[in-house]
């Protein structure tokens, strides 16, 4: 059973991805600062099933210096890591002119520095194995823009640049690197939107609805599976046609 690490997997899109991959037969390590009732329920529900496994591993992704040892330990415990889903991120809103510098820095640290460094240590093992899959969570905001999300938008656009160049670097070794750009998904991160805003986004999308966390999970599973073998350096938009 291939090992996959999913970050930010205690809730929202990350949890949906972890759950989907486990039910597709992968051995999934759900990484987050702390577990959640939803994740524990998913772990309990998966026990005794014929499909893959789901387990929680605690890691504060802001602690960059902890990453080499975390990855080393994961490989020691479970063997080679086949897939990495860089999902963890924060969506701090704020007008740039008044956003505290500390918030700007924290956002870029968690949304960019952290996944890049984690990928560095995980991809090394993939290089040694000659196979692997990296999936980075971007956002449609990387290419469309949204009021009060300039820093978030910058961080998500950065992940696309990272995805494309890394795909070039490691492609020769049988490793694919892709990004998923979700539209607005109903999760804790988008709780700041009120019903009227939500309805407006839905009404503007081609399908007149919002995409769901499960849709993002399906795309991640597609990219990580054999189905994704000839897709690399790509950005897969899943937004119910918001940007169509």
């Amino acid at each position, binding site marked *: 059973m291939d090992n996959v690490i999913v970050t930010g997997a205690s809730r929202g899109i990350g949890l949906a991805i972890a759950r989907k991959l486990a039910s597709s037969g992968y051995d999934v390590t759900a990484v987050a600062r702390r577990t959640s009732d939803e994740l524990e329920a998913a772990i309990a529900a998966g026990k005794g099933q014929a499909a893959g496994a789901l387990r929680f591993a605690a890691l504060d992704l802001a602690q960059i210096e902890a990453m080499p040892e975390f990855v*080393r330990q994961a490989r020691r415990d479970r063997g080679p890591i086949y897939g990495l889903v860089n999902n963890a991120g924060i969506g701090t809103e704020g007008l740039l002119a008044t956003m505290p510098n500390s918030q700007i820095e924290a956002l870029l640290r968690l949304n960019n520095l952290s996944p890049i460094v984690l990928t560095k240590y995980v991809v*090394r093992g993939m*290089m*040694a194995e*000659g196979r692997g899959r990296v999936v980075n969570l971007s956002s449609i905001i990387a290419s469309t823009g949204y009021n009060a999300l300039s820093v978030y938008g910058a961080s998500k656009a950065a992940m696309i640049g990272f995805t494309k160049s890394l795909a070039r670097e490691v492609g020769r070794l049988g490793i694919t690197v892709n990004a998923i750009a979700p539209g607005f998904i109903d999760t804790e991160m988008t709780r700041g939107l009120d019903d009227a805003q939500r309805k407006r986004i839905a009404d503007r999308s081609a399908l007149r609805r919002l995409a769901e966390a499960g849709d993002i999970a399906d795309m991640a599973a597609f990219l990580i599976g054999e189905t994704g073998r000839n897709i690399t350096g790509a950005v897969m938009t899943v937004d119910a046609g918001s940007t169509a």
Partner: protein
Amino acid sequence: MTTRSIIISQIQQVAAEQKKTLAPLTDDLSLLDSGLDSLCFAILVARLEDAIGVDPFTASAEVKFPNTIGELIAFYEHVAA
């Protein structure tokens, strides 16, 4: 196996897998002239971390990549010691 022999055998293995022709591996051979490219060195560092248990490029604050085969071996011997 000594650190030296592990490094030499891993270099040969990576070269064979990546279809690179190696120059004779003497201590004063420049890594640039060894026949391996940058990707090969990245694979080598990943494999050596598994084989020797250390990654001197993470362990040490000194980030300068060694210039020759001899320096590369000394770099690992120094950290492994």
